[in-house]
């Protein structure tokens, strides 16, 4: 036991008693991490349900749906589904699970801390996120329904109120407020992550010995800290335009269905786009970076090899993070923004492809010469690499303003961002889940079911999103509720059918995951301390970990995180905290 004068101060937080303190308002980063994960799990199934309804409507527009008043889905209902699908998936799934879910759970443990720097703030950040989800989802239940302006909420459509469409009244207001609350929650979380990483690392854990998962959570948190304040400002101004008669984003002289809008003038719709995308682009890197960290980590662990080019990987992630703030204008090439700025943004965007490519080469280099074990986690990590390549390359088309001219706002864009965010990032989450579930819950997820889940999902997502590139090239606009309005779209209906069927099967396959998850919680095969023979600190503590992680004995770290297959060693892995004397003794 450590012998230090206690000074009469209590421990950080003694294990809580009582159900409320243990599971509801817990200060334990592990519980909070699980809470975020469950929030994301609920949200992803909600988001997938919305997309199933969308896919049904696109190919069977006149089908009678049981719970829709009137029976047949209207265009505005489709657009409301679309808006909420995007908002819920981007914010409540991709910005929560990889960072606030797994990051919250494993960051303190991987750096050898007993908890986050600010546990109360951590708890607050989760419950604030929860409130933001509730507020947003309430938009479905108000009289005119959820907003129809897309997750990007371009003005003036999002600013003028219900005169421009159903759902644009109370629904849009709730959306804006919910999003503003989410911004506050995210800022709290980002602050906690950065402070913890800077100040609570265990002895010996220098920055360059950190697992790449920690680096990814670090850089993601910095992006979040700097970006969400901008979105919060944008939301505040939009809210004022909506309810207080200001004109930040609304120009003058507008006439909507023969009614003159006389109480707004002088505002700029482009200002909204600049503010939104200044946040929005870092946001998509927030969505993918943790997945990159997990991929690197899992690939190394199951190839039994160090990460190839660890330093380059760190610099690449830093580069992606930094450049991510310099490219927002590539969403606005067609917007009426200065074409000269467009060109500058384009070159910056092509540049950001470089660190992404470096990471891909290094993932392949990690596998090269390895001894690959095909656990489910590993398969999702391998799938991540394939999906990241495919999704990333389509970005090269969109990054050039001239090539963007025919492709902007078509299904080509939908294909691009879904492959990167809606699949690669999700694969990162799946890899993390299958990898860390044994540690979190002391039981394995069923590997056979996991592999079936992998195959159905991997094949399925390519079937869904690969054809969308062709739809975009053929000129199929996005956010269309119906293909009957433009003659040349009718020839593309066959492709839409294929996509819808693939979507139904793939989304259905996710029920396998859900079932596996629930079954695993209740009665999975028991897991020990280090079932994967991994090297990082979480694999030195019991599964599941005790309340204070290291039971008062903070480890010391002696080496980097990826010492696999070191020549001359008895085992093919050396844990980060293994004593040098022990390692020396086993060397031959």
């Amino acid at each position, binding site marked *: 036991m450590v012998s230090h004068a206690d000074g009469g101060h209590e421990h950080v937080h003694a294990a809580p008693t009582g159900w409320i303190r243990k599971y509801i308002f817990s200060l334990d980063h592990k519980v909070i991490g699980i809470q975020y994960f469950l929030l994301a799990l609920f949200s992803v199934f909600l988001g997938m349900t919305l997309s199933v309804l969308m896919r049904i409507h696109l190919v069977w527009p006149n089908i009678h749906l049981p719970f829709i008043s009137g029976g047949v889905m209207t265009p505005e209902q489709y657009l409301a589904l679309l808006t909420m699908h995007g908002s819920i998936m981007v914010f409540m799934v991709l910005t929560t699970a990889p960072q606030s879910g797994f990051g919250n759970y494993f960051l303190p443990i991987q750096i050898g801390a007993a908890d986050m720097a600010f546990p109360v703030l951590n708890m607050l950040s989760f419950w604030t996120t929860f409130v933001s989800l509730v507020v947003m989802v309430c938009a479905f239940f108000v009289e005119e329904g959820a907003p129809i302006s897309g997750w990007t909420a371009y003005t003036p459509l999002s600013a003028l109120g219900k005169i421009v469409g159903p759902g644009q009244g109370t629904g849009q207001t709730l959306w804006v407020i919910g999003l503003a609350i989410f911004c506050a929650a995210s800022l709290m979380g980002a602050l906690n992550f950065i402070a913890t990483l800077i100040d609570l690392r265990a002895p010996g854990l220098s920055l360059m010995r950190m697992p790449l998962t920690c680096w990814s959570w670090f850089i993601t948190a910095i992006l979040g800290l700097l970006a969400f304040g901008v979105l919060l400002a944008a939301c505040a101004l939009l809210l004022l335009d909506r309810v207080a008669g200001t004109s930040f984003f609304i120009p003058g002289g507008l*006439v909507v269905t023969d009614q003159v809008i006389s109480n707004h003038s002088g505002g700029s719709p482009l200002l909204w786009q600049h503010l939104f995308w200044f946040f929005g682009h870092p946001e998509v890197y927030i969505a993918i970076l943790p997945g990159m960290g997990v991929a690197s980590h899992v690939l190394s662990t199951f190839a039994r090899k160090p990460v190839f080019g660890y330093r380059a990987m760190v610099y690449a992630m830093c580069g992606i993070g930094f450049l991510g703030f310099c490219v927002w204008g590539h969403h606005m090439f067609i917007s009426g923004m200065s074409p000269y700025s467009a060109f500058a943004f384009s070159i910056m965007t092509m540049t950001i492809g470089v660190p992404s490519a470096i990471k891909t080469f290094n993932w392949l280099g990690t596998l090269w010469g390895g001894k*690959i074990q095909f656990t489910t986690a590993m398969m999702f990590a391998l799938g991540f690499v394939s999906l990241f390549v*495919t999704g990333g390359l389509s970005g090269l088309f969109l990054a050039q303003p001239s090539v963007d001219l*025919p492709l902007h706002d078509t299904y080509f864009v939908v294909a691009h961002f879904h492959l990167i965010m809606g699949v690669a990032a999700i694969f990162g989450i799946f890899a993390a889940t299958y990898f860390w579930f044994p540690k979190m819950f002391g039981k394995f997820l069923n590997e056979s079911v996991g592999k079936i889940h992998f195959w159905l999902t991997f094949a399925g997502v390519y079937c869904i999103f690969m054809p969308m590139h062709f739809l975009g090239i053929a000129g199929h606009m996005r956010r269309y509720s119906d293909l009957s309005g433009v003659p040349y779209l009718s020839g593309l209906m066959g492709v839409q059918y294929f996509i819808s069927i693939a979507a139904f099967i793939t989304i259905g396959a996710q029920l396998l995951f859900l079932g596996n998850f629930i079954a695993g919680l209740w009665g999975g095969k028991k897991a020990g301390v280090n079932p994967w023979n991994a090297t990082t600190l979480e694999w030195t503590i019991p599964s599941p970990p005790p309340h204070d992680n290291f039971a008062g004995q903070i480890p010391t770290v002696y080496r980097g995180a990826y010492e696999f*297959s070191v020549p001359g060693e008895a085992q093919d892995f050396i844990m980060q905290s293994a004593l040098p004397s022990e390692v020396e003794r086993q060397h031959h």
Partner: protein
Amino acid sequence: MQKRKPSSAGSTTVAAALAVFLLAFTGITVYLFITKPWWFPKPITEIGILIDSQFHRTLIITGVVFVLAQLGLAWVIFKYRDHGQKAEYFEGNNFFEVVWTLATIVLFVGLGLYAESAWAQVHFQPAQAGDLQIEVTGQQFTWNFRYPGPDGKFGMLKPSMVSASTGNALGLDRSDPEAKDDIVSPILGVPVNREVELLIRSQDVTHSFFVRELRIKQDAVPGMIIHMHFTATQTGEYDLACAELCGLGHYKMSSKLKVMSDADFAEWIKVQVANQ
């Protein structure tokens, strides 16, 4: 202590399955991009040809990278599956890092710089002086196209006079002398082989003007008048669609671009004048 040691046979099956899947997926994708079952329609502008060739250039480069990366992944997955070997221990290779970083920079940034000339032709070069100017107005959920008429000047538009229900969707103030000869049409008619300048605007929310064959797209932003010019080189009728979410009628906010010979265009104008 390894609890679950996958057998070599099991490992080979999985590795082979993954590799075959990646090969098949890559093969199918390449096949589709070569056979082009759904593709751009033929361009009807010079700029369209330039854009298509830059697209093609990009497709080749990304295609090669795509094939190499997916096949490379399939290869390492299969070759280095666990079949009882020891993994090698190397932490990286600075030479390779430098090489592929430089190669990627040259390739990507080079491609981006190459794309500049097509963009410049669309946006850096202004329309020529004698161009036919056509004002394009997007509104929920229809397009209207206004021609200045023989006086070459656009008349006044007044928001208070907008009344789509009585046929004055743009709020044209016909008492303004310059407005008297203005022609408003729901279809965009242009003469072939003559440069046309569009003045793109919106009356309510942001829309976007898009004709596939022109390879041109431009947002119609309320509060702005955005200029765009093109020269159509092929007569015919082409679909014109809205490409920016503008409300519940976004999907049906379509119109037509009619490219006509000079004679046909003059006839068409006469018909429009009669319809005013």
